[in-house]
Each structure stands twice: as structure tokens, then as C-alpha cells.
């Protein structure tokens, strides 16, 4: 009977040791993997090519507005809501603005097009005059944007 007890105790101890060793092995394999990943050269993601987008828009205002005042107010609103760093990355630029028809073309990096469209909605006062800026169409080339500007009737 005593012998049986001793055998039972020994088997339980050995089983426990087995479990511990398995856990340690698992941990060791994880550690090995992390060490290996350190030694391997890091793979950088492929850099996205920044493309330009041209946004054709129109302004409906109380009185006619100038190109400079429009550009200033759009940029200030963008800084106010999205921050200076975002504006630097997006680099919005008013390529063309016809002061008679109150239509223009904005250029921006394709990743930030949504931000520009949202900003056009946020601008409500330009040079002390109440205004609504309406995005009309987006294109990939300036030539097409000019074509749209000529054709579109709003």
C-alpha cells in the first residue's frame, strides 16, 4: 500500500513537471521568435505616391469676393478644425478663381480631399460677407478641371 502511494505521488510530480516544462517551452519559443525578428531586417511598407486632385467649386455670396480673401478664410478654417500639421501635409492651393463667375479650382493631395470638401462647408463668412461654398466636381488633371469649369452650369 505504501509503495502504491509513493508511485502515485511520483507520477503526479512527474505530470506537474511535464506541464511546467511545456509552458516554459512555449515561452521560450515565443522569446526565440522575438529575438529572431530583431535580427531580421525590418521591411518598410511601400510608400504611397501622393497624387493631386483638383476640386471645382462655386461660391454663392452676398457680394463678390476676391481670390486672396477666399484662400485665407479656407486655410484658417482648415487650421481651426484640423490643425496646422494636417494643412501642411494636405497643402491646399487655390489654383484658379474667376471673380466674375465666382468659381474656382482647388488643388490638394488625394489623401486629404475629404478634409477640403468638409472645410468648404465650414466656411460661412469671407471678408465679412456671408457665403456658401459648394463643391461641384473632382478631377485628376487641371485640364479637365478647366473643362468642367467651362461646361458646368450652376
Amino acid at each position, binding site marked *: 500500500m505504501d509503495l502504491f502511494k509513493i508511485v502515485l505521488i511520483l507520477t503526479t510530480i512527474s505530470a506537474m513537471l511535464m506541464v511546467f516544462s511545456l509552458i516554459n517551452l512555449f515561452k521560450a519559443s515565443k522569446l526565440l521568435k522575438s529575438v529572431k525578428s530583431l535580427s531580421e531586417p525590418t521591411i518598410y511598407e511601400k510608400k504611397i505616391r501622393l497624387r493631386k486632385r483638383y476640386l471645382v467649386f462655386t461660391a454663392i455670396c452676398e457680394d463678390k469676393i476676391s481670390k486672396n480673401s477666399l484662400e485665407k478664410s479656407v486655410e484658417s478654417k482648415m487650421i481651426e478644425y484640423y490643425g496646422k500639421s494636417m494643412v501642411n501635409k494636405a497643402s491646399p492651393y487655390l489654383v484658379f478663381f474667376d471673380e466674375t463667375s465666382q468659381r474656382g479650382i482647388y488643388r490638394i493631395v488625394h489623401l486629404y480631399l475629404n478634409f477640403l470638401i468638409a472645410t468648404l462647408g465650414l466656411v*460661412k463668412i469671407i471678408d465679412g460677407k456671408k457665403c456658401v461654398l459648394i*463643391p461641384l466636381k473632382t478631377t485628376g488633371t487641371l485640364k479637365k478641371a478647366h473643362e468642367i469649369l467651362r461646361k458646368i452650369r450652376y
Partner: protein
Amino acid sequence: MFSDIYVINCSDRYIEIAIKMKYSFLACIKILGEFSIEKKNLRFMKKLIIETDSINELKDVLRRIDYKNNLITVHPLSITVARWCVHDSRIDTILMTIKNIEIFDKKQLKMMRNYGKPVEVSMKDLLTDDSKLRGMLYRRLNLLVKYDVALTIGTGANDSYEIFHPLTIIMILNTMYDMPIKRAMLALTDNPRQLLYRKQGGNLGSI
């Protein structure tokens, strides 16, 4: 195609710009001037906003008004009113503003989902300058998306220059509040359309 369910003053100029922006349904508190509605293929509805913090007062007002031909919005200022509004079929939307934003908790939103009651948010509140309030709105709007509660957006425009282009509203919701574009689209198109559908007893007509 697009709907603006919260306009304070619908003037002729406002309607002219709204047609240009392809709005097809407007809910106005005041309709100013005479405008040929049928010609322009734009639909109107009178909107009533009831702001209250007691259920009895709300019941009293609902008894007196013509809720069948008007779009009824309740601006609840207490939790009890907000909970009660959810299961009353006379009420079309529940307005969420900066004043009552704390009422809209998980329980309220779950109830609203179960009863199919939409939340209405005004653009004026979405563009508040207070960053703390904007953070609260951010969390609430994302909870709405999570719990699949219908959302409707109104501009809350007083004059014609306070109107927003639908695309800009969608992009504002997407960039400032991280709302998926599809859900933002629904807030301007399908959700208000369903409200109108329910109001007209399943007859949408030309819309």
C-alpha cells in the same frame, strides 16, 4: 434625393439654393414667402419642436397639436421624458443637443433601436467650438453607429447662407466624428425619407 429636416426659416432664396444642392425634402419651422412647390419638385413639411422636462406637459401639448401633418420633434430635458418619447408614435424624432446630451446613454439608445425612433442632430451643435462638448458628441455618435440607431441631420439654418451642401455634411461627419460615409449618407437620405413615408401613410408620391 437629400433631405434637411431642420430649417428655421424657409425663405425663397433658401429654397432656390436648396434646389441647386439637390435637396428634395425640407422640414421648416417657418415658411416665408410664396413659392411654387410643385414646379420645383421639392417637398415641404411644417416642423414643430417641443422642449420640455415634464411628461404631463408633453402629453398636454401633443393632445392639442396636429401631429399628422407636422413633423414632431421633442427636445427632452429630463431622462423620464426622453424614455417616454421613445415609445410614443406621435413623436417622429428626438433632438439631441448640447443641453441634453447626457440623457443619451446606452439604455436610451437601445430603447430607440428597438422602437425604431431616430435621433436628430443639428449641424450647429456639431460645429460647436467647445472641444469637450465635441468629444461628448463624438462618443454619442459612435454609440449610435454601434447600436444601429437611425440618425437624421438638420442644418438648423436661419437664413440662406447657413445652408450646408449634403456632401460637405457627409465629409464633416466622416472627418471630424469618424462616422462611416455610408451611415452619414443614410442620415441625409434614407432615414428622413422613411420619416416622410410614415407621415404620408405609405404614399411617397414623386420623391
